[in-house]
């Protein structure tokens, strides 16, 4: 196990800034995921930790030791690549043994190590095969095996599941989680798939355009995203955003757009009044529950209905915005219907319309 520290790390290629001012700690045994869209700098960060790239500013430390000028092989890291990077002319056994031969381990020790890893990953029967004779899932296991045989202090994984089909990806996700629980080794995982990040990670670091946006547990990131970008990126459907203006009347303070209105607690209202301007209310689809009743918060026309089996997604037209909500699977709603929706006020996020930063979650008053 190893601890990783990135101190104000930056990387530039000429005039182009790939990564800037990244400060991040990965604790011993932690599973940290670098999450973000393509080109946000997450794989670059992984390569900087691995030593495949050197930062142009700041420093990388592993177990408190500065890594400037330290070769990848001396960092006690192992890496699993998106395309697995298995040597195509070598059998699975040769692929697994190759790093061990480089450190001149005896043939019997190599055999024992490979037997152990192969058994743990259920690839014993595949040892004599060439990579081209393996399925995607099997290749992925072999790539993991090649990382495991070296007993590294840190596992670095660069989108290792992205080449698998959806069903296999879910299965391998659980297997990775099990592996981490078993090994308790520090893992840094790169993905653009928020579901992978949410299910696997102890903590998630969200990056955008080479800048760290937020680091936190999956729950923190989901419930208290620091800005609209994080809020929109996390969650399988992203977050609904409604640009609202502040209105005050004798009954209270509201954020309003068309038929939508969100009552703002007094503590939050005071700050919003001081700040002025427009605000964006963020609501997760599960916090917009379609249905009729006394506590309906808004009424709107249905534009699209998506039946998912376990539930139904309803797209509502609210002013110039489409709001996605959820309804029980058995609810029969058709496009064009006028329906009511209940808003989970306590779960709403309020963002600054000017810069997208989080101003408050509805109930916390922060």
């Amino acid at each position, binding site marked *: 196990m190893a601890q990783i520290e990135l101190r104000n790390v930056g990387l530039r290629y000429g005039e182009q800034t790939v990564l800037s001012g990244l400060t991040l700690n990965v604790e011993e045994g932690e599973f940290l995921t670098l999450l973000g869209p393509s080109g946000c700098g997450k794989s670059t960060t992984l390569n900087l930790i*691995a030593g495949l790239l050197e930062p142009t500013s700041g420093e990388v430390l592993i177990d408190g030791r500065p890594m400037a000028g330290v070769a990848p*092989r001396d960092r006690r890291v192992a890496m699993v*690549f998106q*395309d697995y*990077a298995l040597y195509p002319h070598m059998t699975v056994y040769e692929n697994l043994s190759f790093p061990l031969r480089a450190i001149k381990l005896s043939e019997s020790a190599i055999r024992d190590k490979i037997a152990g890893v192969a058994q743990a990953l259920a690839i014993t029967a595949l040892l004599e095969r060439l990579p081209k004779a393996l399925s995607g899932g099997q290749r992925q296991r072999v790539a993991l095996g090649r990382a495991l045989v070296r007993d590294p202090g840190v596992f670095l994984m660069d989108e290792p599941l992205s080449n698998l089909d959806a069903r296999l990806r879910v299965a391998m996700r659980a297997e990775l989680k099990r592996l981490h629980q078993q090994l308790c080794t520090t893992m840094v995982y790169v993905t653009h798939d928020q579901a992978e990040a949410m299910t696997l990670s102890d903590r998630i670091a969200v990056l955008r355009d080479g800048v760290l946006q937020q680091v936190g547990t999956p729950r923190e990131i989901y419930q208290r995203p620091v800005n609209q970008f994080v809020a929109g990126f996390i969650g399988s459907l992203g977050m609904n955003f409604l640009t609202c203006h502040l209105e005050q009347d004798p009954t209270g303070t509201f954020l309003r757009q068309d038929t939508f209105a969100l009552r703002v607690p007094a503590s939050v209202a005071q700050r919003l009044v001081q700040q002025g301007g427009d605000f964006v209310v963020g609501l997760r689809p599960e916090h917009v529950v379609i249905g009729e009743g006394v506590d309906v918060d808004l009424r709107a026309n249905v534009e699209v209905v998506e039946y998912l089996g376990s539930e139904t997604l309803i797209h509502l037209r609210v002013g110039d915005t489409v709001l996605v909500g959820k309804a029980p699977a058995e609810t029969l709603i058709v496009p064009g219907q006028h329906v009511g929706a209940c808003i989970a006020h306590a779960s709403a996020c309020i963002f600054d319309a000017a810069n997208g930063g989080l101003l408050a979650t509805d109930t916390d008053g922060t």
Partner: protein
Amino acid sequence: MRAARIPFTPYLLILPAIVLVFVVALYPMAYALHLSVHTSELMTTGAFVGLANYRALLSDPGTLWSFAASVIFVAGSVGLAILFGLSLALLLNEKVRFRTAFRASILVPWIVSQVVAAMVWRWLLNADYGPVASGLLNLGLPRLDPLSEPRLAMWVLILANVWRSVAFPMVLLLAALQGIPENLYRAARVDGIPWSMTFRHITLPMLRPTLLVCVVILSLSDFNIVALPLVLTGGGPLDATDLASLRLYREAFSDYQIGTASALAILLFLVNAVLTAAYLRSMRART
């Protein structure tokens, strides 16, 4: 049901190509085989002599030496061309400055005709006015006349040929190197594989099919080479560079021994056929 029609159009379309191959390849080959088992007087075909031309050739020490000289020339040329071609490809695969200019300068000898290349080398190595000899004399070293020295002439011929042909393996191997996935090298770096092991166990095996293609194509071309040795050494001195291809040219177009020349051509054809079979096998292994 309509009766199935024989589609003539495809055959019609490939007919010109078939005619061309027959006229320029199949007919000359069959005619050479025919000539090789007949006597010849100037350009006329004489009596059928069976394998007499072959027997005469194979019992002539000069012919056997020609084949031996060809083997030495081909082995030396191909070996060095691959070695230098691979080295240059490895160099040009790195981010070196002036890479494009460097690459272009290596390609120039390849597009120069064999005759021009031979003339340039003759001038360079001329013992009386060549810059190499002058340079050596200026350095106080003895006069060098490699083209008159039987032990050196073959080396000169090989070097000139390597200079001319090195661009071919370089271009193919550079393309092959650029086709090796970068992640294999990154994985090797992270796994702590030293450079020598990476080269031996990753680069070379990944280049193997291309190396085989280079070896076979260069061998074919070098076995059949005429213009370069004809102009550079003329087979001399003392038959030191009398390659089989050169002998074939001389038998046919200097001595007008068409029957013997045809038999020699058939023997060379067999050598080429074996090499082509190896080439096709290497291509199959690749796919």
